[in-house]
């Protein structure tokens, strides 16, 4: 399936595996940003941690939507 998508147009790969692959790094970046905000802007990680759940949920949704597409 991947090869089909690649040969048809310039979109490199099907979206589902791409979203799945960047899920980890995105969560890592969000984690880093939240801690950095805690230290520099004083917005505590204790307040902002639910953002991690939201981002993880969103990534799952996007991944599923991508996989569901023809």
């Amino acid at each position, binding site marked *: 399936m991947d090869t089909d998508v*690649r040969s048809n147009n310039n979109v490199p790969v099907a979206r589902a595996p791409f979203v799945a692959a960047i899920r980890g790094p995105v969560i890592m970046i969000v984690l880093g940003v939240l801690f950095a905000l805690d230290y520099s802007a004083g917005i505590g990680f204790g307040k902002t941690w639910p953002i991690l759940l939201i981002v993880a949920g969103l990534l799952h949704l996007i991944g599923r939507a991508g996989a569901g597409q023809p």
Partner: protein
Amino acid sequence: MRRPSLVAPLLLIALGALFLARNLYPNLPFGEYVARYWPYILIVWGAVRIGEICYWALTSKPLPARGVSGGEWVLVIFLCLIGTGMHVAQRDFSGGWVTSSPWVRLPWAGIQGFGERYDYPVSAEKASSKTPRIVIEDFRGNLQITGSDTDVVKVTGRKSIRAMEKNGAERADRNSVFEITGDTNEMTLRLREGAGFARISSALEMTVPKGASLEAKRRDGAVHISNVQGAVAVSGRVADLDVHDVGGPVTIDVNFAGDVQLKNLANAVRLKTPRTEFSAAGVPGEIHVDSGDFKVDGLTGPARLSSRSRDVHMRDFRNALEIDLERGDLNLEPLQLPLARIQATVRSGDVNVVLPENAGFSMKATTKSGEISNGLGAGFKVDSDGRKQTLQGATGTGPEITLEVERGNVSVSRGSNKLPAKEVAHPLETINQ
């Protein structure tokens, strides 16, 4: 197929660079940097990973099922634990937070939520004797103390409060008041803190009677003290320190200092930082200490200096001198006659000594690995024994000068200028007038 990631080599390089930098600049607070900036490692790590995945996707290579492997997550969790641990430790050490128990301050306790800064004026005043003893208790921020012909102790300045909203800041302002307690002879300036989690820092100017003795316990910030005749003691954690025109003994015991500037101190001086210890009978001239150098121009001994790593320049000093230097170059130029005993030990670094033209002294200089350049002429002889060199000799009658170097070169010579430059300047000024 699993392609090797860039992250592991990049992490290794960053770690190596960090340790190298720590070795090259031992006085910079790298622990603090790591405690403060470790989250950016996560951000860069994630960004590099995404960059790699995008690159693979664009070059039509198969993508990994998971962008971050299980092993990497374990590393990330370790990084978070160590990072928050260091951060909490650092923050406690610097004491920048008003709350008392460290455990309620862990990030996941969700108590820190401070957005904006609000400023409030500070002003306090108290009648005083001519020679009061004043204790300034620790608070976060800058402090400037000046002695003058007055018999009141006066504090002005501002207090900055970080809070999420104005109400909280105002409450914190009401609950935290600078007050001067005690009687006219013995008083204490302190920030009375009420309950609350606001972060408060201040910039205060204090005017005190000239005869005052001061004791400042600091957590942070810069300290300037000038024009005081009593004893001065500064302890704690200080960013920059400037002490000048003090009549009494000066004792400085700080656990981290940026730049230290001491000038015109009539009485005994003691300076202690984690890597340097210094004492002298007086500093009629000035001393400047920063992360790389320890510069002295005008000193009354007997003086002692021991330092882990600094380039030391000592010019214009009298009486005995003892120096113990772990790493760094040593430059000595006594200028004053008669000379007194000098004893210097340098583990690793070059030593350069310039003695007055007609000084009498005996010298023994050794370097276990290096060269000795003899600019003293007749009466002094250099012997070589493998990599070890020794210079020995005497001229006239005078004290003993001992230089011991483990690794480094030694250069000794006589100066052509008998008078220090600044003393030469005076006659010219009078001629001009």
